């Protein structure tokens, strides 16, 4: 067993883990944070996406010990302090950026990471930025709208709820 000390959604954690424990299993099983899903388990689908020191990573391909000393953020961690949805989550809700919802926590974190690196992405940059996240309901158009909506909100360009839901998105 190896000791890991890290911050998860702002809370300091310290646990003895097996070195082979994957970060996604540490989050889900050890900490009970079930937002990050295990989809493909092969670094492809992005359902397990979380932020590691602010950058999107696929937590099925990170060992918990590799996160030692670092800060992890999951979809639980972007909920507002009063329990309401965070900006990116609210944008997904407004644009109906989900169908079955399985990919959504990973999508939300990928968008959160993308907008941290590129606060004003074009539609094409959103599509390329979400290359590592699969939606098998194929709801991509609304997911792209949600990302652009979130970008506008975070820029303060658009007050909440005023981005038209039929924002032009090319096919």
């Amino acid at each position: 067993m190896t000791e890991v000390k890290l911050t998860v959604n702002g809370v300091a954690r310290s646990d003895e883990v097996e070195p082979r424990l994957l970060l996604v299993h540490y989050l889900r099983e050890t900490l009970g944070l079930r937002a990050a899903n295990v989809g493909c388990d092969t670094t492809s689908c992005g359902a397990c996406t979380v932020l590691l020191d602010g950058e999107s990573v696929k937590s099925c391909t990170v060992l918990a010990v590799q996160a030692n000393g670092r800060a992890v953020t999951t979809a639980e961690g972007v909920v507002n302090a009063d329990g309401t949805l965070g900006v990116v989550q609210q944008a997904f809700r407004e644009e109906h950026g989900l169908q079955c919802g399985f990919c959504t926590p990973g999508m939300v974190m990928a968008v959160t990471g993308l907008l941290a690196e590129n606060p004003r992405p074009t539609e094409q940059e959103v599509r390329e930025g979400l290359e590592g996240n699969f939606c098998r309901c194929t709801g991509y158009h609304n997911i792209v709208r949600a990302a652009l909506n979130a970008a506008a909100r975070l820029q303060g360009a658009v007050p909440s709820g005023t981005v038209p839901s039929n924002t032009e998105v090319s096919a």
Partner: protein
Amino acid sequence: MIPASFEYEVATSAQHALALLAEHGEDAKLLAGGHSLLPMMKVRLAQPAVLIDIARVPELSGIRVDGDEIVIGATTRHADLASSEVLAAEVPILAYAAAQVGDPQIRHRGTIGGSVAHADPSADLPMTLLALGATIEITGPAGTRAVGVDDFFTGPFESVLQPDEILSAIRVPRHRDDKAGAGQTWGYQKFVRRANDWAIVGVAACDGRVALASMGGTPLRAHATEDALRSGASIQEAAQLAAVGTSPGADFHADADFREHLARVLTRRALEGRTG
């Protein structure tokens, strides 16, 4: 899938990593981003008894200029290559190629040294470094040796890297603008059927060197094309020779004939300076 059990060691310096490798022998593997190794461990294609984590060794990371070369530490991540100002200015093909690896999440973890050491013949960076004429810096018990990229890859997922050695850095020649203001002449082509796949065929062309991915057991130079260009052939003529001397495999994506066709078409596009 969960990897088989292993011991985990954190190296604090390159020398410490070498000592740990010497202590544990061939049962040990180096871990940096883990984006080639961990997937292999999950499916038991790799089952090391010890993982030596070199991701926290500062001296193995970073991009710096050293005379006529740019030295890239082995654990420098794809995302860092893609956003590097010095690479964008002097070796733009490498910054571009790094941005083609996998997806953003993978580029936040995967490293150049890991990609090269993994020696996947379909990968972006090995092909690109071959086109650049890079030098692979290897540190072992007897010191550091430099291996030209043309001599580094020996087969699919095989290289001259020994179990007691660390791939410590990659050196690429600088391409400073000449007096006429001309930078690198380069093109990059990666044919995939789906976003984020491996190249069915890839071509990296840079200043007269042409390298191919997925056209044999290692990344390959298109020597016949290069020779033709030096002899004054047109791009169209030279590209027709791109598949000469290659030995592409067949899989459900493409048979060998189709790969040879792709190599010719993509080589022409790359030599025309196109990306895609």
